[in-house]
């Protein structure tokens, strides 16, 4: 560190970095250049413009485990105000830059591109630029100009020179800036966009203390140039315009002249649900509502209005709280571009493709032109009623990506769905509008239930199947009795009582299998399984019928020569069976019941003789309860599937991709 006396006022001027040749005197704001241990006075530099930056000389932080200290800055003016390039001295002796504006932080350093860069005139928003074998997309091109210096800087800029700068983004946090201050020899600064909390900054400005120190100091009251209503600037140095809450007049607040930009004839004064100046904590940040805007999109001749609240925090910049049909989202600027799902390249131009961002896929929801209908409060760009912007929304509930396109830039933001209650609690709203319809990124509560229900169903299916297989393997399936014979053709009724037989084991089911070797004939077995000890009978019947033939379509057959009847809960014991057979033939017209009538009793008709048998099997495995269980379990996942699908249908009906019906 080198400390030298200012040649203008004698105050100490400190050089912390060996590489810096220029510095400003903190006392008299003279710009000095170092010649070994002598300083040359280059004249006074312009005053720094209030820009609301939380960083100051001496602020320290950490990036990629490297400690740094802020030792200087270049303040640059661009279309939307000012941004700062803070000059960093790292603990390893190297230097770098921290670009900072409106809560975005870009840690960067100069890069030797190694190859000629794209010429200024060839660069467009959406152009691809390759640097360090990485694809970059140009997201913004603008004219910039030096505003002022502070502390140590490694070079000087011509304050009269307006030159082009372009922002390049990637699908990651890697980004770059092309600097055409020397159009023939442009510079590249490459680095990473990082979140405020990632830098672990210390020694920041204390805005509360500054506000406290200003208390009691007489300050000029700002009043609307049109109606005289007083207002307060909450993001001084950053806000470009303020729209009077009462009359709608939009004034330039870049300087204190409050030049009127636009006067509008309001048909009504809208009272926002969240008042300007209200504070609320969302995502761990205490935001202050500084602006309110109503916009609308026109789709198929219908107007869809939505309300946007501009939230501000000195350290984290801006966020948008957007309300539409009672649904709320909190939108923040994106640090990196989404990627195209297929190619994996960063998105150069919004399309209807599905996008990939932070490992999640986002489906295109809607593209529309939004028009500003109403503004009140402060804004960081020169907004006015009637402004239009092309918007593209992509959803992955509960998150959403949005891109607003204008001629000079693409602005991407990521949003999170907020429950209305969360908003009401954050901003202490006594009541809040209840949502209706389905929000674009409203979470579908039935999806989780549906997935859970299907998972449970699958688990049930697997467990049930395994248990049924085990149960089948453990069933004895034992033949305990069989009887066969030959039935004579006429008469067609046979009655017999079988020998006694034992049914052993525990109480189980019994399956009585019947067979009759018939063709084009039916046989009906009237049967009773009689317990010899208790004289209790299970009375049942079993039909066997089989028909076959051939016609113009070829051979056909119908029915079966076997049948079986399951008898439940038959205890062990000695049994015999009563069997009575009837038989009839195909072609007996009176056998067919008149339509809608009760069937007539069957009548036996003579026919050829046939073989028959009756078998009794105990403890036969049955899968009927397996199927009944499955059908019993099915309604719940089906219900949630229907509810989830219904909600998704409602959601996408409002999009550019409405679900199609089979008639379409």
């Amino acid at each position, binding site marked *: 560190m080198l400390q030298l006396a200012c040649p203008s006022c004698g105050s100490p001027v400190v050089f912390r970095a060996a590489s810096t040749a220029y510095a400003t005197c903190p006392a008299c704001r003279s710009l000095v250049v170092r010649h070994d241990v002598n300083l040359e006075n280059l004249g006074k530099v312009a005053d720094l413009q209030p820009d609301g930056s939380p960083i100051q000389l001496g602020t320290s932080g950490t990036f990629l485990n490297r400690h740094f200290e802020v030792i200087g800055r270049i303040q640059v003016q661009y279309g939307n105000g000012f941004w700062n390039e803070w000059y960093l001295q790292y603990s390893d002796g190297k230097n770098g830059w921290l670009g900072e504006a409106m809560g975005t932080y870009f840690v960067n350093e100069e890069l030797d591109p190694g190859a000629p860069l794209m010429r200024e005139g060839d660069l467009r928003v959406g152009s691809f630029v390759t640097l360090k074998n990485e694809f970059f997309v140009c997201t913004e091109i603008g004219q910039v100009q030096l505003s002022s210096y502070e502390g140590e800087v490694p070079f000087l800029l011509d304050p009269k020179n307006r030159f082009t700068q372009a922002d390049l983004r990637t699908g990651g946090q890697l980004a770059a800036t092309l600097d055409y201050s020397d159009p023939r020899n442009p510079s590249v600064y490459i680095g990473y966009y990082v979140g405020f909390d990632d830098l672990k900054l210390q020694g920041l400005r204390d805005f509360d203390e500054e506000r406290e120190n200003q208390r009691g100091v007489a300050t000029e009251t700002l009043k609307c140039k049109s109606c005289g209503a007083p207002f307060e600037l909450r993001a001084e140095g950053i806000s470009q315009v303020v729209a009077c809450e009462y009359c709608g007049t939009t004034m330039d607040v870049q300087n204190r002249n409050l030049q009127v930009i636009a006067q509008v004839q309001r048909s009504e004064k809208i009272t926002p649900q969240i008042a300007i100046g209200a504070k609320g904590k969302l995502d761990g940040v205490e935001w202050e509502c500084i602006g309110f805007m109503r916009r609308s999109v026109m789709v198929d001749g219908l107007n869809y209005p939505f309300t946007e609240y501009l939230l501000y925090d000195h350290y984290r910049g801006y966020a948008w709280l957007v309300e539409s049909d009672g649904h709320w989202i909190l939108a923040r600027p994106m640090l990196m571009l989404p990627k195209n799902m297929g190619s994996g390249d960063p998105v150069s131009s919004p399309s209807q493709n599905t996008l990939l961002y932070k490992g999640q896929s986002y489906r295109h929801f809607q593209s529309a032109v939004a028009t500003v209908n109403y503004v009140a409060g402060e804004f960081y760009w020169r907004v006015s009623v009637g402004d239009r912007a092309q918007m593209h929304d992509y959803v992955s509930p509960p998150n959403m990506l949005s891109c607003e396109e204008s001629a000079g830039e693409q602005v991407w933001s990521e949003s999170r769905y907020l429950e209305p209650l969360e908003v009401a609690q954050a901003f202490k709203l006594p009541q809040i509008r209840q949502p209706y319809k389905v929000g674009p990124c409203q979470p579908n509560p039935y999806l989780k239930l549906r997935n859970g229900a299907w998972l449970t169903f699958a688990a049930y299916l697997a467990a049930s199947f395994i248990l049924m297989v085990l149960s089948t393997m453990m069933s004895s399936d034992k033949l305990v009795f069989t009887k066969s014979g030959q039935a004579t053709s006429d008469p067609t009724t046979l009655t017999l009582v079988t020998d006694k037989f034992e049914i052993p084991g525990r109480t189980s089911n019994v399956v009585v299998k019947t067979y009759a070797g018939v063709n084009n004939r039916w046989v009906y077995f009237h049967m009773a399984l009689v317990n010899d000890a208790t004289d209790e009978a*299970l009375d049942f019947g079993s039909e066997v019928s089989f028909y076959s033939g051939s016609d113009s379509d070829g051979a056909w057959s119908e029915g079966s020569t076997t049948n079986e009847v399951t008898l439940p*809960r038959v205890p062990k014991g000695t049994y015999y069976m009563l069997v009575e057979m009837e038989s009839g033939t195909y072609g007996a017209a009176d056998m067919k019941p008149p339509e809608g009538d009760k069937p007539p009793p069957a009548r036996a008709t003579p026919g050829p003789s046939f073989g028959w048998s009756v078998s009794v099997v105990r403890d036969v495995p049955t899968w009927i309860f397996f199927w009944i269980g499955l059908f019993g379990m099915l309604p719940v996942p089906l219900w949630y599937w229907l509810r989830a699908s219904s909600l998704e249908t409602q959601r996408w009906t409002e999009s550019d991709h409405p679900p199609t019906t089979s008639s379409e």
Partner: protein
Amino acid sequence: MLMNLYRVFGVGLLGMSLAFNYFGMSLTSPERVEGVPKTVRQNPGSYRSHYQSHYVHVGGK
């Protein structure tokens, strides 16, 4: 909560189907008749089945 109820229902259903299988339950319920005469073995016609009146399918084209 609802999902837990559904899981409990599934476990119950599984238990029931296993129990029904084990105890030989069936969906059919044949007529239980008490006091079948002992003489039926000598005179089969003394007992008439409850299924005496029935409908049979008469198929064919």
